[in-house]
């Protein structure tokens, strides 16, 4: 039996994890992904097919985002990984450890310190700045998929900008429910050309994508698609003049840091109907608590408890 470590090509780059190339992917694969990324940046909102590889994490668990991150990461980067807005959810921990191991990269929980942020289901509350890259994990990149299951059809619809079906769907929502009944993965129009899935972020985060100074990259591993929103690109949530797009509003501020106008998690505290609302973005919450000093006492906002 051959020793797996001996099968790997580039001995110069075995430093971080013997047996694998820097950032796991081989250089040819990274080049292939970067070519797809360049095309995606050149045609904002367009889904570029790419030869997605099997990753050591399962499909549906962020393989697209991981391949994008692996292709753009370098030793000077500082990586932040969030899932549901939190740095310490299990899958975020797992992906952060993966890159710490295969890319030897510095990691952080601070949005402001990160050069590269991989996310699932949220855009950080702290505004992003120029030079930062936000990598989204995308399960279903096709915004029209629930309306038309066939890829051959949806590709044609995008080519012809034939988005009538989407308007009809939103209109049917209004007639049936009195409002557009999509609360996450809310479709957006990018640069008035391509309808795009923002990934399953709550629609609360859609406005943050509009003219963001950061580069936003989207990777869908299982579906083998990459797309992008370059900095300062227009991103408009689909709506009607008389039924304008609106985001979620919460009645109470965060129970830990007191922020309002942020996205909150509803935490069930007992079996008597007790609940509290706290920031979904753990870093934002911790920064706010720290800034408020110890007037609240030394509370450890989101580090309390945990899975054992």
């Amino acid at each position: 039996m051959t020793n797996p470590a001996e099968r790997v090509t580039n001995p110069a780059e075995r430093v971080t994890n013997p047996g694998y190339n820097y950032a796991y992917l081989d250089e040819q694969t990274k080049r292939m992904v970067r070519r797809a990324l360049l095309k995606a940046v050149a045609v904002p909102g367009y889904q570029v097919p790419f030869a997605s590889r099997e990753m050591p994490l399962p499909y549906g668990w962020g393989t697209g985002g991981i391949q994008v991150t692996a292709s753009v990461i370098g030793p000077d980067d500082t990586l932040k990984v969030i899932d549901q807005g939190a740095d310490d959810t299990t899958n975020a921990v797992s992906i952060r450890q993966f890159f710490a191991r295969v890319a030897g990269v510095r990691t952080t929980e601070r949005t402001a310190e990160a050069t590269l942020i991989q996310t699932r289901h949220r855009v950080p509350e702290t505004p992003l700045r120029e030079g930062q890259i936000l990598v989204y994990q995308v399960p279903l990149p096709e915004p029209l998929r629930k309306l038309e299951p066939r890829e051959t059809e949806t590709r044609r619809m995008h080519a012809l900008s034939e988005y009538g079906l989407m308007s009809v769907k939103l209109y049917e929502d209004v007639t049936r429910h009195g409002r557009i009944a999509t609360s996450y993965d809310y479709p957006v129009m990018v640069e008035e050309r391509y309808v795009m899935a923002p990934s399953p972020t709550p629609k609360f985060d859609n406005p943050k994508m509009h003219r963001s100074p950061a580069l936003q990259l989207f990777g869908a591993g299982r579906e083998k698609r990459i797309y992008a929103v370059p900095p300062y690109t227009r991103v408009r949530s689909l709506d009607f003049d008389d039924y304008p797009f609106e985001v979620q509003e919460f009645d109470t501020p965060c129970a830990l840091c007191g922020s309002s106008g942020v996205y909150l998690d509803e935490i069930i505290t007992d079996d008597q109907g007790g609940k509290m609302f706290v920031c979904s973005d753990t870093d934002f919450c911790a920064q706010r608590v720290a800034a408020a000093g110890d007037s609240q006492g030394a509370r450890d906002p989101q580090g309390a408890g945990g899975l054992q």
Partner: protein
Amino acid sequence: MYVAVKGGERAIANAHKLLAEERRGDPSVPELSVEQIASQLTIAVHRVMAEGSLYDPELAALAVKQARGDLIEAIFLLRAYRTTLPRLAYSLPLETGRMTVRRRISSTFKDVPGGQILGPTFDYTHRLLDFSLAATNGAAPAAEPGPADPPAAVPGVVDILDRQGLIEASAPADPERPIGDLTREPLNLPAERDLRLQNLARGDEGFLLSLAYSTQRGYGGSHPFVGELRVGEAAVEIEPPELGFPIEIGEITLTECQMVNQFKGSKSEPPQFTRGYGLVFGHCERKAMSMALVDRALRGRELGEEPNAPARDEEFVLMHSDNIQASGFTEHLKLPHHVDFQAELEQIRKMRRRAEEPSE
């Protein structure tokens, strides 16, 4: 007090320790060796190699051990390893007509040149639990040796027996057209037969079995016969450009199935028997036969058949055949989704408030 479903780092480390403990099982029972798995659970190892798309019995056996016998998990391990390997060379097309046949049957002809060879098969065993296997001291009775010099090459039944052209000829390869590889290029639809066959060869045995079965029950029927099913060892050759002639680099076990199907003809094609093809790493007859049936069902565009059944629907079959994609995405529902769930909660509360408001 608020206890978040967070703090994953320690939880993950502990979970992995528990997993290792469960994998080992009762420490008073001797540990399974990779060699034992490779030589005694061969069919499991073969399935892992076939769907893992990597011919390496030792690594596949290691994957089976690491995965605690969960074959889809083992296939995943092998795939994730395979994807990191460099491509050193491309082999020449395998000459399955020259393979050393250990088993070879045809149901379309009573006897065939080279003979029907039953070989090591579960067929015709009575499925009675053999309690003597529960004792571990038994050496298996030795099989009687075959003829001293078995036929060196046993050509394919279907190719040699149809001289009247009633069975369609195998399409010759087009040397101008490169053969697709869906592990290097994303699959674009509609796909040609090379990519369809590659997809099926890597596809989940259970999925293909059910699709094949559905064609037999009337969902896109193809009236099949097993023209030939063979299991044996074939040589793998490469032709390094600096040498200019082929050299043999090893031998792999393969299962090949040529399915022959009735075809009443269409606007473009005369009535004739048509073919479906299955080729799988290792000894995997069920998979090879299922693959051949589904391959035939997917040839509708070429033969003028309507895509009116699941097995005939190329996009449906090819997009859902991969068990690593399917299990990953199905099981990702275990990941936290509370941000989206919160969005839906808020939505449904608003909708209910609106429904409860007195109408004007």
